[in-house]
């Protein structure tokens, strides 16, 4: 029987497709490429930081490297990753629908993403930009001699890809649910996509206008962001962080959605507290719009504003904590299997918790004065974005790989990679918490010799992490040729996507799927499918 993969074998059929599943794969290829480019920048950074002296690259080159790393990883990898790959692939399947609400708009989203990514890459190749991914003024508008405008144009274009994807998901979830699937019968992955889409649609436009104002200020050389003219650099920061803080929730909410699909499956238990999980997702998205000033505590912002943002930042941690409790409670009295997706998902829970708790330290005004712009902050956000979001992305890739490709990957190698990633990640980033508390500042390519041991550990960890990330390329590719044939439901999972063939036909379902009464209808005594035979 033909699947969506056989439906047109030419490159042209792929480049003009409106099939959400094919578009998801187009995104997957592109973001994988950007992931490794951003990772290459990180590799050079960690090689430089293995020794105290700034001897591998010049300080200008170093500035361009960490800027490239940030710009690529945030906008060209993390923001699109789970929504545009897993969300695109799975949302219509989870709803029993044939496609998203606006399939052609979906293809346009991919082309916009590609165009923006290529423009950004071009800026990098021409010589890069050295302002940091945060583009603070007046340096970025008045003093930097690098390709600021070109990079911002790339970011601007990519932003519209996000907005249109979010729009597509919102309309899809409101209008294409089957009649039997009310909001509280939706899988939590769908809830995660919905809340993420709200943020994409409402926050990304602010990034768009901010980049335009930056470009205008740089071109006119007269500005509202420049104190020399009586302007306010903090006006830029308010505008920038109004988008960029909700952006981190764009990165984590889909990850939480993925984890909520995987843990119940591999613990054979329904998720604990489904409704509170759904409400927590919505709360995180909404309150997440109110906390952006916590990036500006030492910028000169007023004390009253800082206190307000600090309080709100503490509040936004609460729904995340609720989710961590509920994932843990889901495991209780479960029948747990440590398949690769579960290893990544459990890793997510632990590492996200550490990252989230360290966020609370940063939300305290007094502590932030000491910790801001140090490696503590870098460790904090990498724990959430890499230990959290990237691990969840890998969890999802592994969980739904059989569905998307019809092949099983090597379980042994997948588990090895998961462990390498976990060990490598902690070795890379835990020392950075200590470095930050001890006072090592971020964005410097040289440091005092007393910080060397921890930096060396961190760089060693980065090497291990790199191996862990490269392994899936090998065994996923291997599985396409030699992997065992996956049935429709190799993991015994619930959810409408598992009621169709692997890989699915172009129209998603041969027969209309059946919406169960209970959303995560797992039972620990229900026999799970036999574990995957060794390769």
């Amino acid at each position, binding site marked *: 029987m033909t699947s969506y993969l056989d439906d047109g074998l030419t490159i042209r059929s792929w480049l003009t497709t409106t099939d959400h599943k094919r578009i998801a794969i187009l995104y997957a290829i592109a973001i994988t490429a950007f992931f490794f480019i951003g990772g290459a920048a990180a590799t050079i950074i960690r090689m430089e930081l293995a020794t105290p002296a700034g001897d591998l690259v010049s300080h200008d080159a170093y500035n361009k490297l960490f800027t490239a790393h940030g710009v690529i990883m945030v906008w060209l990898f993390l923001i699109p990753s789970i929504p545009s790959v897993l969300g695109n692939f799975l949302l219509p399947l989870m709803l029993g629908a044939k496609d998203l609400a606006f399939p052609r708009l979906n293809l346009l989203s991919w082309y916009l993403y590609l165009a923006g990514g290529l423009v950004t890459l071009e800026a990098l190749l021409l010589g890069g930009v050295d302002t940091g991914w945060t583009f603070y003024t007046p340096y970025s508008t008045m003093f930097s001699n690098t390709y600021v405008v070109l990079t911002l144009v790339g970011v601007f274009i990519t932003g519209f890809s996000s907005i249109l994807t979010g729009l597509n998901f919102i309309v899809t979830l409101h209008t294409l649910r089957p009649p039997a699937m009310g909001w509280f019968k939706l899988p939590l992955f769908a809830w995660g996509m919905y809340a993420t889409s709200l943020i994409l649609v409402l926050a990304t436009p602010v990034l768009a206008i901010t980049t335009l104002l930056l470009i205008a200020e740089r071109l006119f050389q007269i500005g509202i962001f420049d104190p020399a003219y009586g302007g306010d650099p903090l006006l830029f920061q308010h505008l920038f962080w109004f988008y960029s803080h909700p952006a981190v929730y764009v990165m984590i909410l889909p990850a939480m959605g993925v984890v909520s699909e995987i843990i119940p499956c591999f613990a054979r238990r329904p998720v604990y507290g489904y409704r509170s999980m759904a409400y927590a997702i919505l709360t995180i998205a909404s309150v997440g719009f109110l906390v952006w000033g916590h990036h500006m505590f030492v910028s000169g*912002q*007023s004390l009253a504003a800082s206190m307000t943002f600090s309080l709100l930042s503490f509040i936004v941690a609460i729904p995340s904590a609720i989710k961590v409790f509920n994932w843990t409670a889901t495991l209780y009295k479960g029948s747990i299997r440590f398949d690769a997706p579960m290893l990544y998902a459990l890793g997510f829970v632990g590492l996200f918790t550490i990252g989230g708790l360290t966020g609370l330290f940063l939300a305290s005004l007094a502590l932030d004065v000491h910790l801001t712009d140090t490696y503590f902050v870098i460790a904090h956000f990498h724990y959430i974005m890499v230990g959290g979001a990237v691990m969840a992305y890998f969890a999802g890739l592994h969980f739904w790989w059989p569905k998307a490709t019809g092949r099983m990957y090597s379980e042994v190698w997948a588990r090895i990679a998961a462990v390498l990633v976990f060990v490598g990640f902690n070795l890379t980033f835990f020392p950075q918490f200590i470095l930050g508390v001890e006072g090592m500042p971020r964005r410097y390519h040289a440091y005092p010799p007393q910080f060397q041991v921890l930096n060396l550990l961190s760089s060693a960890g980065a090497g291990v992490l790199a191996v862990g990330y490269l392994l899936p390329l090998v065994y996923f590719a291997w599985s396409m040729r030699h992997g065992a044939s996956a049935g429709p439901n190799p993991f015994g999972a619930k959810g409408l996507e598992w009621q169709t063939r692997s890989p699915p036909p172009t129209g998603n379902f041969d027969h209309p799927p059946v919406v169960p009464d209970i959303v995560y209808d797992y039972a620990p005594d229900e026999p799970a499918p036999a574990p995957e035979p060794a390769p």
Partner: protein
Amino acid sequence: MVDRRRFSHTALTLGLAWIALLLLMLASLGSSYLNLGPWNAVSGLVIATLKAAIVAWLFMRLRESGPLIRLVAIAGLGLWSIQIGLSSVDYATRAVTPAAIQSPQQLPPLQAASRPH
């Protein structure tokens, strides 16, 4: 016929709304030439809000729309007002210390920073 009456009713509503919009525009223009102090800005914005409400309610048919569409409209406006409001908390409470390089301040600062001892 019902259809004909409905159309006439709709066309009449649109016509009246159009006239109201033009009159409000002239009111806005006229009031800007009167010296009302800070109330000039207020009247300009209030009139603009009224015009926008007419366009949104009658032309964009929010009057007949379901709760979902109205929620979408409110979400956009609500979030934008949060952006303005919460940013203004910073501006309203920030002590201002002009630097020597800056052009002369046009407004006495709401709060001058206390001089260092």
